[in-house]
């Protein structure tokens, strides 16, 4: 069970959030929505054990996780394979080149393994970042708006690819997009200044089609909640 409860005080002694509580769905997707600046990313960074520029009230045991951000964070001086193998090299281990190639193939970049990030489109770069995330092979995967910079078609494609490749893992997705949460979330939550509120989510393990009536209904529900908070 991966759960976080607590409050966080920022550097200038104001509360970023108070008594927030979020439990992740084991082996499924938990989506966290909310307006900008409310602390969604901070929650994710607490799970990841990253610096949050604040004091968190509860001890949170840091777990091994793999992390994917809005920026693909590909090292420009490494080719796609080099980026996929980065984790092992940073830990001083011998990288598993064969597995690296397999994962690059699974994200559909076989022909681009020796290309540099600059040579790739935004969508391809995010797929390379996904391969790097899979290479880490952690049970906990933390995604901070990884698809938000992509165009609508590529975003929908990436959601399906990520859902397929990350099956069985405990995934936390921070997103601005109610449609994304509606499609992917086994549990959806909206964060505002009063805390984290659980919202309805899809039933069943598979990803919803963007045009399915269930998706549209969940999406509308999330949007209404988000707008109410903002008002």
């Amino acid at each position, binding site marked *: 069970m991966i759960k976080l409860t607590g409050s966080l005080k920022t550097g200038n002694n104001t509360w970023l959030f108070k008594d927030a509580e979020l439990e992740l769905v084991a082996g499924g997707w938990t989506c966290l929505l909310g307006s900008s600046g409310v602390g969604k990313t901070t929650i994710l960074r607490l799970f990841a*054990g990253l610096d949050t520029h604040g004091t968190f009230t509860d001890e949170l045991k840091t777990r091994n996780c793999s992390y994917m951000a809005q920026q693909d964070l590909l*090292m*420009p001086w490494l080719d796609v394979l080099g980026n996929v193998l*980065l984790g092992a*090299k940073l*830990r001083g281990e011998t990288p598993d080149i064969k597995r690296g190639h397999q994962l690059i193939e699974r994200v559909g970049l076989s022909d681009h393994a020796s290309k540099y990030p600059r040579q790739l489109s935004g969508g391809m770069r995010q797929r390379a970042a996904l391969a790097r995330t899979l290479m880490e092979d952690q049970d906990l995967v933390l995604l901070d708006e990884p698809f938000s910079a992509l165009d609508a078609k590529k975003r929908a494609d990436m959601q399906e690819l990520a859902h397929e490749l990350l099956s069985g893992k405990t995934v936390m997705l921070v997103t601005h997009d109610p449609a994304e949460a509606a499609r992917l979330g086994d549990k959806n939550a909206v964060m505002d200044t009063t805390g984290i509120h659980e919202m309805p989510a899809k039933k069943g393990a598979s990803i919803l089609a963007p045009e399915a009536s269930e998706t549209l209904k969940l999406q509308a529900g999330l949007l209404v909640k988000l707008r109410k908070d903002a008002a």
Partner: protein
Amino acid sequence: MNRFTWIVLSCIFAISLWQTLVSATGVPHFILPSPKQVLDTLIKSRELIAWHALITISEVLIGLLLGAALGALTALHLMVSKTSRKLLMPILVFSQAIPVFALAPVLTLWLGYGIWSKVFMAVLITYFPVASNFLDGLRRTDRGFLDLASTMRAGKWQTLLQIRLPAALPSLASGLKLASVYAPIGAIIGEWVGASDGLGYLMLLANGRAKIDLMFASLFVLATFTVILHSVISIFANWLTRRAKGETKEVLENA
């Protein structure tokens, strides 16, 4: 017209202007020699100039190499050790307030009239731009890269060598470019203050004996060397930068 043609044209323009000035004013050759006289002296005294140029070039190259290496190592060390950074940064900044030229006489006193006092001048003058540019680059690594490395449980050294260092190569490159222009200045100042060899010494000597044509010929050789040095270092620096940004030839062609 390509870049090379323009360079040739601008040389011709400058030389014509110079020649016109000398012919029109009828200024005596011991005040301002004509380009022709300088060229004649350059050919006539080529062995003398070459010998002194060789000394200066050695001082500059050794000084630049040592200064850049020391500067880069200092930056890496200050990046790793917070204590060193806090302790040494004020000293480094203060040391930059001292004009290097003011140190030249004392360096001659300590290291003698040979090449080492000039090498040391070149080291002093190249060390800081390399160290400060590189350290700046090392410290300004993209926060996201460091977060990623942290979730990958990277060690401190691995993060330094595999993330911060390659990301800082463009900054190191701009430090090296600056250093390549400064190094000859350091060596020449050193030679002016006290030397028995080198282009700086030759220029002072020629000036004192009213051999202005020889002075100009030496100056011309020095300037040519500085331009070549800067171009070579720039090619290397730009290669480093392209490497760090993953700009291979293919990328540039596709762009």
